[in-house]
């Protein structure tokens, strides 16, 4: 369970860490759009270069970035396999009813790259931004929605707590799993269905414990004067500085180049 690194903060002091979360949220969103503009080799190389530069600036180790991909291995595999076999084109290899086509291979390659790119881009945001800053950023971006009675601040608080408890629940799931294994539970053998079923004795106690934790956490928050309707102070207020402006310009340039490559090539 410790392999799940999505949504976890990687403590370091870097340019990207210090950046305004609103810039990083916008950046992650633009990388997502950028991923779907990749249709050619130059686009692929340029976007890879861009991600490489910001990863290097963020001081997040490359190994850590790779680890975030583990969570989407299944989705990746499905996307790639479907593309390989389902896209019509010149047949390269035929295995019974299944045909691998050249267009399929290329499409699968791009799909693989796009999904990896999206996950890497968004996890870079969560690695370099503490959940509190992240939710503060989201809160500010979506603040106008509170005019139409969307509880933006409450949603932001719920999100930050969810992110905070990912490692806690992960550790707990591991403990329960070990406890069940020591009593003879088998999680490794059988097909997917059997293995999914064998997770039930892990998930039920995990849920029960999550509810108990939620109950205790709400008491602790209340006793520390949390009042959703009151005006809260801010420990790390967002200041949009020159650096953030420049970062926005870089993001703009990235989008511009991606669109140009897409249109021209």
């Amino acid at each position: 369970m410790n392999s799940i690194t999505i949504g976890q903060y990687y403590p370091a002091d870097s340019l990207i860490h210090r950046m305004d979360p609103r810039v990083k949220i916008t950046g992650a969103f633009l990388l997502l759009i950028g991923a779907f503009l990749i249709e050619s080799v130059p686009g692929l190389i340029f976007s890879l270069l861009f991600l490489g530069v910001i990863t290097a600036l963020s001081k997040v180790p490359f190994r850590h970035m790779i680890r975030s991909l583990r969570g989407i291995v299944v989705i990746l595999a499905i996307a790639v396999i479907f593309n390989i076999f389902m896209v019509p084109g010149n047949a390269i290899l035929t295995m019974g009813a299944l045909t691998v086509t050249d267009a399929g291979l290329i499409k699968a390659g791009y799909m693989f790259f796009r999904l990896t790119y999206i996950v890497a881009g968004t996890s870079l945001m969560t690695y370099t931004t503490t959940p509190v800053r992240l939710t503060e950023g989201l809160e500010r971006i979506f603040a106008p929605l509170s005019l139409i009675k969307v509880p933006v601040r409450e949603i932001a608080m719920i999100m930050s707590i969810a992110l905070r408890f990912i490692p806690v629940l992960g550790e707990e799931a591991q403990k329960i799993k070990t406890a069940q294994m020591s009593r003879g539970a088998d999680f490794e053998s059988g097909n997917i269905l059997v293995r999914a079923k064998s997770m039930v004795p892990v998930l039920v106690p995990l849920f029960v414990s999550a509810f108990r934790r939620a109950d205790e956490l709400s008491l602790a928050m209340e006793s520390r004067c949390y009042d959703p309707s009151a005006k809260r102070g801010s420990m790390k207020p967002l200041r949009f500085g020159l650096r953030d402006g420049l970062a926005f310009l870089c993001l703009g340039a990235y989008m511009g180049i991606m669109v140009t490559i897409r249109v021209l090539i």
Partner: protein
Amino acid sequence: MSIIKISKILFEYIRRDSEGNPKQIKTALDHVDLDVREGEFIAVLGANGSGKSTLARHLNALLTPEEGAVVIGGMDTKAPENVYPVRRNVGMVFQNPDNQIVGSIVEEDVGFGPENLGLETTDIWDRVANALEATGMWACRMKTPDRLSGGQKQRVAIAGVLAMRPRVIVLDEATAMLDPAGRREVMESVMELNRSEHVTVILITHHMDEAAMAQRIIVMKEGAVAMDGAPKEIFSRYEELSGLGLDVPDTVRLSHILRSEGMPLPEGIITREEMASALTGLLKES
């Protein structure tokens, strides 16, 4: 001057059937009276279900009594407008360290309380820095909670409470899930706060050696105060404590056994040092 004044409070847990009629009533607090002076260090003992935690939750308006009143620094917890001022004055530290840390890095968690009070940014940082220094956690301020030991997590929780500048800190079995080293860490932090900042401490515990460090011990039994006095006085009532299902510190039990075997040990030995000097005194005489 009394900071907490509890008079004749009654609290019941009522289980209802599907029609909403009471099925089972359990009286958790049965007309409890208690007076706490500012700056006191009180330990609350009692078997499971004796009403310790229910009492603790009345101290910062998480629960309010059905009868009687809890008055904190002149404020009745029953008045809705007093709820937040009361919680600012009485901080609570709970048993499970993971379930009370809201922030994902240490300093952000300690800042949670001051943020809730709607303070200015510089003010929040002042309080966070002070609280982290007072609990010795300043060096860990940038860490994520999952990299801390149990004792360190509880000290962060204490710092989080301290940052609200409370006059009273209630520790509801806050050491129960810790190893001996973690317990010692937490106890040292708490005693230091009591000594240097004159914070009133109410420590709910199962550990007799922790209770022995308090100035005053309150023993609860079936929702009522069964004993109230200085540790020496409480631990001398050895049989009574055993009857309540409670233990005494090892040294107290040892001196009790030695006395009943005919050794002329003085009453009121609690610490190991006291025991050692009493025994060497006896050896010299013989």
